[in-house]
């Protein structure tokens, strides 16, 4: 078990090193998120809907789509020269490949959120400081679920003819039980309700994370040839 | 009692059309595949 995690960490570091060197995917995702935040603001009548009511929706929609951008690159980087074969041939458990890539994607998604959430707070004039801790927890839990499912489907979609269409098509239904609790809990927090009110949603999020991290980790080896 | 027969008829027709269209499509695909079979070995 320990070697699985150690190997996963190696793979995660490799992926993050690649990403850090070029930064292209990260920058694209951040710019996309910021532009989307701005466009959303102009997309509705600010006199009809208060920014604070719209913000949770905007936040989590952007989380989902910028997350997808990050997910696509997860196995996308292994496509040139079929680099994935090298990983599979190496003496590590296949689950490590999955976990390593998931961890790298987790770092990627969280890094985007560290920029996107304050940006939403800035543009929508939200009282983020007092909800920073619970919001960070929600984001972390949501990101785990997103990354578990997204990494698995990235591994699968990348081998199909319609990779860019198929990844969102496969993943988005699975993102819904993440986005609903996250957005509802965020809305509760923003409107000044006590943290306990959001607790039921958090439990659902944690349950989803546990089930799908386990399921996707176990499923990944089945997507590879014998 | 409300008079909403049009929705009721439409629903039955739509459902029937969907089932029939699928069955017809299946028949069509079956015939196309059968035509390719003789001499083809996989």
């Amino acid at each position: 078990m320990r070697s699985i995690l150690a190997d996963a960490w190696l793979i995660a570091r490799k992926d993050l090193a690649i990403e850090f060197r070029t930064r292209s995917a990260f920058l694209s995702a951040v710019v996309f998120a910021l532009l989307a935040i701005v466009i959303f603001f102009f997309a509705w009548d600010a006199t009809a809907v208060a920014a604070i009511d719209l913000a949770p929706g905007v936040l989590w929609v952007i989380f989902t789509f910028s997350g997808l951008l990050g997910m696509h690159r997860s196995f996308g980087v292994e496509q040139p020269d079929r680099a994935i074969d090298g990983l599979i041939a190496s003496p590590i458990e296949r689950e490590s490949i999955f976990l390593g890539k998931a961890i790298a994607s987790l770092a990627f998604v969280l890094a985007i959120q560290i920029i996107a959430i304050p940006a939403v707070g800035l543009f929508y004039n939200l009282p983020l400081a007092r909800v920073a801790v619970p919001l960070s927890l929600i984001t972390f839990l949501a990101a785990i679920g997103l990354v578990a499912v997204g990494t698995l489907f990235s591994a699968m979609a990348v081998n199909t003819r319609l990779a860019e269409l198929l990844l969102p098509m496969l993943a988005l239904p699975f993102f819904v039980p993440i986005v609903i609790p996250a957005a509802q809990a965020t809305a509760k927090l923003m409107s000044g309700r006590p943290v306990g009110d959001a607790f039921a949603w958090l439990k659902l999020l944690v349950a989803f994370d546990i089930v799908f991290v386990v399921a996707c980790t176990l499923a990944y080896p089945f997507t590879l040839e014998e | 009692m409300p008079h909403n027969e049009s929705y009721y008829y439409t629903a039955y027709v739509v459902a029937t059309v969907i089932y029939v269209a699928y069955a017809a499509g299946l028949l069509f695909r079956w015939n196309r595949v059968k035509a390719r079979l003789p001499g083809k070995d996989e």
Partner: protein
Amino acid sequence: MKPTPLTIAALAAVVVTYIRAIFFTPIEAVQGPVQKIFYIHAPAAWVAFMAFGLVALASALYLWLREDRLDRIAESSAEVGVVFTTVVLTTGPLWGKPVWGAYWTWDARLTLTLFLWFIYVAYLVMRGALDDRAMRARYSAVLGILGALLIPFIHLSVYLFRTLHPRPIVMKPSAPSLPSEMLTTLLLAFGAFTLLYIALLRARYRYAVTRDGANPAEEHRAS
């Protein structure tokens, strides 16, 4: 494709159901004639979910036993299942508009069915995008199982969402206790559409066998 006894029985059962529902079942007093959509809507929903259950089961068995038969069963059940799901999603709004005032009200069950439809479609599109048969079977099996895992989470999320955001409804359809004539029609409908599902499933499976060029006598060979 010769019509088998099963196919004939299924068609006969559906025709009898239609006749009974349209001509020999009383009209419900509050909703009016539109309530009769129930007799095609509810059985289709039952079949839609049952069909996905078979997809999930066949998927799990495929990953364990690696028999092509199981992949063909899953593929067939998915395609027939999406047809029934489409019927649910078209008849539901047609029933909802006169009864609830709107075609779509994010009703918990219909929303869950919508997600089922999305999962089915993703399954079929993914299969269409994969030419390698073994990879297609493996990936489909994974998606079939994960989709089944997803359904309870969608159900719970939507249910919690709905109870916290109740929507005003004009009338509540499908009263829990039906008069006996309506109940009989409903049960007949369930039986007939289940038969229809089995008949279509079998036909679709036979098509898959022919398409794959596999000899039916050799089906028992493990892949």
